[in-house]
């Protein structure tokens, strides 16, 4: 589960404060234990991404951050070793693009 806990008030002035999240282990077992809470499996039907989550385009795992994600943020997919940049799509959703 992803639980929002507070807002980060250290953001720049032109940014709405970011939500913060406490991440819990979702049973994702493809990375060492200390990193597991940062990833979960996409459940397809009925699943939805939280504001702190994006899908890795390379391996389709859900990547999670302790912060609400914004365009320009960097995230890492450890299961497939990809570095990604968060972008906003034309549809208004967040998407991760590989940054080689």
């Amino acid at each position, binding site marked *: 589960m992803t639980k929002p806990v507070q807002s980060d008030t250290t953001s720049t002035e032109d940014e709405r404060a970011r939500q913060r999240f406490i991440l819990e282990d979702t049973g994702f*077992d*493809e*990375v*060492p*234990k200390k*990193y*597991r809470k*940062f990833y979960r499996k996409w459940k397809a039907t009925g699943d939805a991404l939280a504001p702190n989550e994006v899908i890795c*385009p*390379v*391996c389709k*795992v859900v990547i999670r*951050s*302790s*912060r609400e994600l914004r365009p320009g*943020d*960097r*995230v*890492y*997919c*450890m*299961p*497939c*070793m*990809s*570095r990604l940049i968060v972008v906003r799509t034309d549809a208004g959703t967040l998407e991760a693009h*590989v940054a*080689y």
Partner: protein
Amino acid sequence: MPVRAPEPSSGDIHDLEPQQFLEEVHSFEFWFQAVEGYLSGLTWGHRPDTPDEPLVPADRERLISVLCNYCVGETAALEGSSGLIAIAPNRLSKIFLSTQVADEGRHLEVFVRRLRDLGVADPEAEIERRASRSLLLFKRRLLELVASKDWEAAIFAQNVILESLEFVVFTSHAEDADPVTAEVLKAVIKDERRHIGFGENELGRRLADSPHSRARIAQIRKELDHLVLDTLEETSGNIGLDRSEHDRLGRVYLESVERLGLLR
């Protein structure tokens, strides 16, 4: 001294510096702790108490053909990745490939074991008898690229093309396979994530640094594509996928090629 990944002060893994991230995920230590999480407690790639349901003869025949060709693919990747260690351009790639060699050896072993479970007395002979011609040609070409010490082309053929094909086929097959085969495949898929990610990211970084290589790699894609798509067609038929699922797999396979700018 290798740079170990420290806990970022924020506690968020995404705050690591890129080089720290690369050092961490390419390490043998990372690999060991990762595979321990999902292989611990398995015997020959599945839980010992998973029921091995008897298959009707036609399904068993098709599964044997599919597994024989998985063995051809895994043998190609085993021989390819072990050969690539010698020409890998840096320490991180060499160490990562050493973990991939271990993965591929395990995959080959569990698929051969599954063939024996299905009553195949001589798996090596059966693999030779049922191997797809397209896949054998692909394997031969991959090993030629490795032998010619063409790092970029060989990584593309193996970790982008072959691994992407395996990833999409295994994922689809696992959804509809018998319980034991499904468990074996699901553990293999977890390894394949690392392999496809390594290939795409390594090649992506190199193409970004030397864009002139893109045309050469695109030419190799053209040469190998029909072998891969023929293999996909044969395997899709044997695992009983309908046309729409087969087409979807073809599109998924091409996604990484497209991200690398090699579709043209």
